[in-house]
């Protein structure tokens, strides 16, 4: 289940970021809808907890690092949401979503951070997916 992406080079280009995001959506899209829906809920809940815990840094101090942290979660949720509907999307529809996510990613994070942020995003994806798989399995066993 663990997805280990090999993100080459230290400084990624915009095109590489887009490809990396596409890779993740396509890979996650192979999972069952129920699992992805559960993972989307988990990642949105993590987003909520982060926004709730960091309110002083964000709303009062306007701390950009805290805001970037929140947007890591938003991007993870966006990746799950797109992967969830991948089968229903036409090729252009999928490209549009990938463009939007990539634009957000490259707009929020400076280029020097792209590789680091992708790695953090992968960690969040892993956490949400693992938790969703456990939850789905428990539900299917009627626990």
């Amino acid at each position, binding site marked *: 289940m663990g997805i280990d992406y090999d993100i080459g080079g230290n400084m990624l280009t915009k095109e590489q970021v887009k490809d990396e995001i596409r890779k993740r959506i396509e890979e996650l899209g192979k999972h069952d809808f129920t699992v992805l829906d559960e993972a989307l809920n988990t990642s949105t809940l993590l987003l909520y907890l982060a*926004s709730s815990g960091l309110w002083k840094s964000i709303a009062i101090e306007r701390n950009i690092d805290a*805001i970037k942290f929140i*947007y890591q979660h938003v991007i993870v949720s966006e990746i799950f949401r797109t992967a969830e509907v991948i089968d229903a999307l036409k090729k252009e529809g999928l490209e549009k979503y990938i463009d939007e996510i990539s634009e957000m990613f490259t707009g*929020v994070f400076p280029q020097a951070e792209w590789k680091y942020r992708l790695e953090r995003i992968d960690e969040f994806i892993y956490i949400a997916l693992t938790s969703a798989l456990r939850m789905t399995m428990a539900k299917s066993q009627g626990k």
Partner: protein
Amino acid sequence: MITKEQLKNEIRKRFDELSGYDFKLLNEVFYTILLHIYIWLDGLWKAIVLEFDGEVIRRVYMRLIASRIVREASLVDVLKKEELEDRINEVYEMFIRIFPQHMWKEALEKIDEEIKSSLNTAMEVYVITQKGK
């Protein structure tokens, strides 16, 4: 102009009022508001990250306060009195630090609108789920 004490009482009133609803329904309301927060963060990223637009950030946090009220209200039955007071204080502190006093009344009204509209949406989902459709 609302005073600090009045504001705390207003927050308490909402906790008490909402805690009378079914837990499942409140959970549905919570997730509905959460979805609204997510959609806003997604749609307003430029204004938040690049422009640091204080008004936009306040609007996001207005919804976050609404979701906190609903979440805590769903737990009222299992919280001890002091724990409930702690939660009220946390929400209250967030509220007074985010909104300047002259905005308190308007912010409370908007929070009420958010809770009411999410409650209506959640109620529809809840009724359908109960009927097993």
